[in-house]
């Protein structure tokens, strides 16, 4: 399944590195404004988890992939694991590369992670709900929505940051349901 790394689009790695580079540059001096900018950028990183997970369904490759030796579930896990693992490394490196912290290390990273998880959660729900190419288009809107929402509410009324554990819980729940759905496609 490591061969799946070669089939993840190069733009996924390049844009993720680009966002990391921008975050490191901005994070040289973290202030109140910079935190929310980084928080608003995080959903675009999460977009690649959604596009890689929804690729087979969006391109109608699912049925071919179902009937091969490796199950579709393990295929998706391999793809998602690779991208999520890469993003995990990015967040770890970010904590090391930031020059200063506005609040504390954990708190600043937390403000960046919550929109990331919210994007993954909403995107997972949409991928379960919409089939075919529609799912790809709908998922493209999720990071935009979360980014604007995080950017506006973060400074004025940071409600999403208070619901952090709830967001993580629903993220895990959505993706368990997503993987359960890969076990048998919806008929017609």
């Amino acid at each position, binding site marked *: 399944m490591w*061969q*799946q790394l070669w*089939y993840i*689009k190069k733009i996924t790695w390049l844009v993720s590195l680009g966002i990391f580079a921008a975050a490191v540059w901005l994070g040289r001096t973290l202030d109140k404004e910079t935190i929310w900018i980084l928080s608003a950028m995080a959903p675009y990183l999460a977009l690649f988890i959604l596009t890689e997970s929804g*690729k087979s369904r969006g*391109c*109608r*490759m699912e*049925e*071919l*992939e*179902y*009937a*091969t*030796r*490796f*199950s579709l579930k393990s*295929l998706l896990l391999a793809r998602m694991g690779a991208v999520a693992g890469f993003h995990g490394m990015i967040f770890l490196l970010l904590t090391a590369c930031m020059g200063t912290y506005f609040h504390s290390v954990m708190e600043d990273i937390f403000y960046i992670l919550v929109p990331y998880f919210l994007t993954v959660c909403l995107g997972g729900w949409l991928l379960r709900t919409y089939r075919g190419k529609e799912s790809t288009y709908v998922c493209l809107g999720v990071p935009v929505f979360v980014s604007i929402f995080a950017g506006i509410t973060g400074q004025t009324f940071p409600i999403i940051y208070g619901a952090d554990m709830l967001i993580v819980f629903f993220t895990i729940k959505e993706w368990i349901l997503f993987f359960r759905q890969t076990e*048998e*496609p919806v*008929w017609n």
Partner: protein
Amino acid sequence: MELRADRVTKRYGSKIAVDGITLNLSKGVHGLLGANGAGKTTLMRMLCGILHPTTGDISLGSMDVSTEEYRSVLGYLPQDFGYFPDFTGMDFLLYMGALKGLPKSYAKKRGRELAELVFLKDEMAKKIKTYSGGMRQRLGIAQAFLNEPEILILDEPTAGLDPKERVRFRNMIEEYGKEHIVLLSTHIVSDIEHIADDVLMIKNGKLIFQGIWNEEKGDLEQFYLKQFEEGAANE
């Protein structure tokens, strides 16, 4: 080894898509005939392990249909399939080869052989989005053969092929069926008339006929239409 389906049923709420079908398929070409909506695709998906039967069992020898071992000896062409837009023909075959657990060098060699067999040798470096419908169908047929499967399941494989391509395809299947189990579904009788060792007819999810067909028995198409008329009369 035989592919066995024992009283397989697939139910969706009150709708019965496949109703108590029992099959024993050995080496040879088996033609599955039925109208649109008869249950051919649902049955084939269950034989591929894509759908779980509501009741009944499917196995190949000692291998249950839900196992990796079974899927490693299976080749499947769905009725309708897509492709990743950036893929060339060869990328597609290598990708499917990776999913079938084939080493890359072997998948490449096998891909080239199959490309030649389906007359796509000169198109393999081109993107699939530039292919015609018939070319995509031939590429789909090629991927089904990649792992030299023990069981080959083809759902309406001649859709989009021109008459010359259909004849080539029939010859390919006939040859392959000598040593492997091939199940091919169609609603076009001429697709299987000359190559099927065994004909199965499905209507409303039920198997209404299963038997060996040869020219001495007459015209298969007339026989096929008669089965459906008799079925309607009995109802």
